[in-house]
C-alpha cells in the first residue's frame, strides 16, 4: 500500500495539492481581506495556480464565503422549523431588525452589524439559535439578544 507521498503524486490526481486547498485558502483570504473582493480572489487564484473564474465559481457555491462586504459582526438568525417552533425565527429577526434599524440582508451604516436569515445551524435542540461570526448563541430570549448586541456595540471582535 502506498504511503501518503505516493498518494499526493499519484498520476490520476490532477494537481490535488492545489485544488484541495481551495476552501481553506478562501477562508484565509476572507479573514485577511474581510470579504472575497476581486483582489482576494486574484490572490487565491495566483497562489494555487487556478484561474480567478475557477476560484470565484467555487466560492460562490458556498454560503459561508462572502462575495459582498459584511458588517464587522455578521449576525445570522435561524428561521428553521425547530427554531420557529421554539418561538424564534421571525420573532428574533424582527426584533434585531428593529434594534439595529436594518432589514435582513443589510449592514448598519457604521459597518458594525449585518443581519442575515439562515436555514439551520444545528442547534435545533437548544433553539432558538443565532450565530455572530464564529460564536453560536442558543436558547435565545429577546432580553438576551438585547444584552448581546449592547455588549458587541461596546467591544471589538
Amino acid at each position, binding site marked *: 500500500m502506498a504511503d501518503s507521498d505516493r498518494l499526493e503524486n*499519484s498520476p490520476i490526481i490532477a494537481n490535488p495539492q492545489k485544488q484541495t486547498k481551495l*476552501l481553506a485558502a478562501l477562508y484565509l483570504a476572507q479573514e485577511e481581506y474581510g470579504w472575497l473582493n476581486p483582489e482576494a480572489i486574484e490572490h487565491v487564484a495566483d497562489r494555487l495556480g487556478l484561474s480567478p473564474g475557477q476560484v470565484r465559481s467555487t466560492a460562490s457555491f458556498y454560503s459561508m464565503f462572502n462575495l459582498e462586504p459584511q458588517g464587522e459582526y455578521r449576525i445570522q438568525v435561524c428561521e428553521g422549523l425547530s427554531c420557529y417552533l421554539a418561538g424564534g425565527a421571525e420573532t428574533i429577526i424582527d426584533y434585531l431588525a428593529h434594534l439595529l434599524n436594518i432589514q435582513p440582508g443589510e449592514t448598519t451604516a457604521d459597518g458594525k452589524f449585518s443581519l442575515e436569515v439562515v*436555514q439551520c445551524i444545528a442547534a*435545533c435542540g437548544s433553539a432558538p439559535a443565532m450565530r455572530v461570526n464564529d460564536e453560536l448563541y442558543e436558547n435565545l430570549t429577546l432580553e438576551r439578544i438585547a444584552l448581546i448586541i449592547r455588549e458587541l456595540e461596546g467591544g471589538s471582535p
Partner: protein
Amino acid sequence: MPRESDLPKIVAVNTDEGEPGTFKDREIVEQDPHQVIEGVLIAAYAIGASRAYVYIRGEFFLGVKRWIKAIADAYEAGFLGKDILGSGFNLDMSVHRGAGAYICGEETAMLESLEGKRGEPRQKPPYPASVGLFGLPTLVQNIETLACIPHIIQRGPSWFAGIGTAESKGPKIFSISGHVNRPGNYELPLGISLSDIIFGYAGGIPGGRHLKAVIPGGASTPFLRGDQVNVPMSFEGLAEAGSALGTGGIIVMDESTCIVEAVRRLSKFFAHESCGHCTPCRIGSWRIYEILERVEKGEGHSGDIDLLLDLVDGIDGHTYCPMGSALVNPVRSAIQHFRPEFEYHLTHKSCLVNGVK
C-alpha cells in the same frame, strides 16, 4: 470496495449533516473526536487505506478547532502516522472544513467539495467505493457509524446486534426538538417507541397542550399524526406507519402549530439548499415553496392543493440525487394527514389554529 485494485484507498468521513431537526453530528464532532478517530483507524485498517479525510460542516467552528487538536494529539501519541504502534500500518488524517452547503451531506457532493470544487453531486455509478476522491476507491462513512465501530470491535458483534430489533440492530442517536420540555440528543436502542421518547425522555409537551404532528426521522421524512406515535423507532416500524427512520431527527408539533406554515418553512429550506444542478429540484422546490407561501397567507387559488401534489409527483424520483426528492415526503404526507387545514386556508383565507396560539 474493489479488493483487487492496487490503487491507494481512502476513507472519507462525512459530518456534514445539516437539516432542521437533526443535530446529532454536531454533538459527536464536538464532544468525542477520539472515539471517531479510533473508528476511522479500524475502518482504514479493514480496507487497507492509508489516508483519511474528515469533512466537517463549515458551521461547526468549535468542532473544527477540536478536531485539529485531536488529530495533532493522536499523531503525538503515535496513533496516527507511520508504523502506528509498531504495527507497520500507516494512516494519515486531515480535517477539511466545509463552507455552508447542505448538499455536501450527499457523499459525492462532499467528495467534490473535498477536491476544492463546487459541491455538486456526481452521477452514480460509479460509486465512491470504486471511483471516489481524486478518482481513488473511497469508503465514505457517516460519523455516527464510525463512532460505533470501536465499541463493536471491543464488545463483539453479538453485543451490538443484541441491541434493537431483529431488523434494526444497534443503538441510535435520536435528536428531538420542537414542542417538548427537554429537547436534545438521546442515544437509545432502535425499536424504542416514539411515544416513550416524546413523553418519557423528552419530558412531554409544554403547557399540557396536545400533540398534533411529528416528523420522526428528519426534515425529509413523512409526517405522522399525533395519534400515530405508538410506533417503534425502527426501519420496519416506521415504514409500516408510512414514514421513515431517516436521520432519527424527531420534530414535535403541538396543537398550536399550523401545519401549512410548518411545511412552508421546510419547503423554503429545501428550495434554498437546492444545489441547482437538476431542474425538478431547482425549479420544483421553489414552485412548491411559492404556492405554500400564498396558501399560508390566505392568498391561495382553488386548485393549489392538487397543484402541490402534481408538482410533488413530478419531482419524486426524477432528481439527480436523493436530496432533490427529499421535499416530496413532508409535502405529500402533510396534505394526506391534514388536508382540511390546507382547505381551510383556501376557503377562509386564514389559519385554522391561530385562535389556539
